[in-house]
């Protein structure tokens, strides 16, 4: 929490400000954040050039397969991952589960993901993220959802996609929806902005800010279903500023080689010759799932 930070701020300085929280998101741009379930995978991710790792107890495709309630990871596992990596470590808390978030903050994780991949703890409220020193990332399927999360204090938004499917179609749908509405809002007149705020169920000042700047107030990354270097480059060309890759790496035939290829593809997302080069000889990608056949869609969690 803001006034009980693990280390006291040095004199005349402040921690946990919006500038500092959004600042780390700025530093993660153009990079790949990889899901890892143990320290071995964390090392592979860092070796491959990940900008951060996301510690969770099971990758989304396993959560999908196993069913049951998915929760915050064991602190011991998160500590283990922190011990072997030098890059930022993120971890997931359930939607609305502010105590899991408090625990993650006390462990010193660098970002908390209030994530729909875990089973929600509250079906009406998200976490009040302003109350924390640690920054939060939240998922969104559309612009209204993104702005509601930002109004609750999220400092990074990721399009949700459909995690654990290896199918990029939902990520594309969500990115197109968010950027499409941003483009329309920049063209709207002042009277129309009131109607946009009502339609999006989002705070008017944030809608007005988008009208002025033409972009979200915080970085927008992409997650959910990315499995190949081309998928990562697709997300980047559609306007995402970084990518999260979950099951796509450690459920493929050769995680290390695929992870490196996705890192290179994210940097050189506009260069088809380099994309062709890094896409060669990666072995099989994770098996994919059709969205229509899913029993549970994670993307619908969040309000």
């Amino acid at each position: 929490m803001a006034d009980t930070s693990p280390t006291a701020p040095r004199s005349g300085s402040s921690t946990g400000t919006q500038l500092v929280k959004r600042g780390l998101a700025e530093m993660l741009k153009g990079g790949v954040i990889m899901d890892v379930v143990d320290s071995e995978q964390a090392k592979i991710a860092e070796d491959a050039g990940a900008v951060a790792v996301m510690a969770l107890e099971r990758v989304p495709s396993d959560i999908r397969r196993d069913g049951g309630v998915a929760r915050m990871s064991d602190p011991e596992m998160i500590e283990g991952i922190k011990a072997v990596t030098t890059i930022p470590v993120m971890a997931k808390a359930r939607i609305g589960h502010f105590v899991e978030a408090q625990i993650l903050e006390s462990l010193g994780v660098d970002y908390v993901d209030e994530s729909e991949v875990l089973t929600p703890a509250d079906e009406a409220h998200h976490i009040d993220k302003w109350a924390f020193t640690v920054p939060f990332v939240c998922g969104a399927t559309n612009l209204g959802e993104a702005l509601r999360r930002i109004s609750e204090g999220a400092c990074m938004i990721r399009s949700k996609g459909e995690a654990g499917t290896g199918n990029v179609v939902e990520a594309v749908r969500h990115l197109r929806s968010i950027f499409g509405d941003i483009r329309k809002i920049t063209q709207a007149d002042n009277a129309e902005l009131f109607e946009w705020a009502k339609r999006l169920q989002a705070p008017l000042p944030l809608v007005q800010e988008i009208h002025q700047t033409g972009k979200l107030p915080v970085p927008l990354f992409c997650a959910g279903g990315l499995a190949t270097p081309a998928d990562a480059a697709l997300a980047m060309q559609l306007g995402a500023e970084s990518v999260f890759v979950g099951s796509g790496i450690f459920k493929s035939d050769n995680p290390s080689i695929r992870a490196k290829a996705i890192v290179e593809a994210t940097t050189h997302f506009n260069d088809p010759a380099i994309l062709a080069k890094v896409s060669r000889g990666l072995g099989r990608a994770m098996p994919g799932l059709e969205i229509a056949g899913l029993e549970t869609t994670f993307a619908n969690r969040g309000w």
Partner: protein
Amino acid sequence: MPVKVGLLALQGAIEPHALAFQALGATSVEVRTPDQLAAVDALVIPGGESTTMSKLLDTSGLSEPLAKRLADGLPTFGTCAGMIILARTVLDGRVDQQSYGAIDVTVRRNAFGRQVDSFEADLAIDGLADPFHAVFIRAPFVERVGDGVEVLASVDGHPVLCRQGVVLVSAFHPELTDDLRLHELFLSSIS
């Protein structure tokens, strides 16, 4: 010919630097390939993950050309991760992490701690009349300074802004605030 500033665009906070140079009327271009590096008069290595950038310098074929241009006296400004990449020696880095020795300092990665310890503070900088509001994100600091390196600012006794010839490095992020004085200082060093 106006000066062309290259922004190493492998990963990290590139756009805020571009906006700062634009506000100062200078031209900046993104650098991801050896050809693009060959075409610039100065270089900014931005904030981001130094381990990631180090690997991408290799895979993008930029490592050797960058070392050569730095040895030839390319004016360079490194912020945070950029400071680490330009340093002589890196502590708490990865064993395979490259640094280019363009400035004779020893830098400790994440020396101020993790994200919950990241902070903003007003900083007195040598040569600037008013304090500079500085943003430190999982920031490094300098532990050893070689001969010929000027220390322009420190926090708790640790150097966070240093200069040696045409190479300027900061542990903090001047690109995240509207204060353009350090970008201006860097531009003034390019002739």
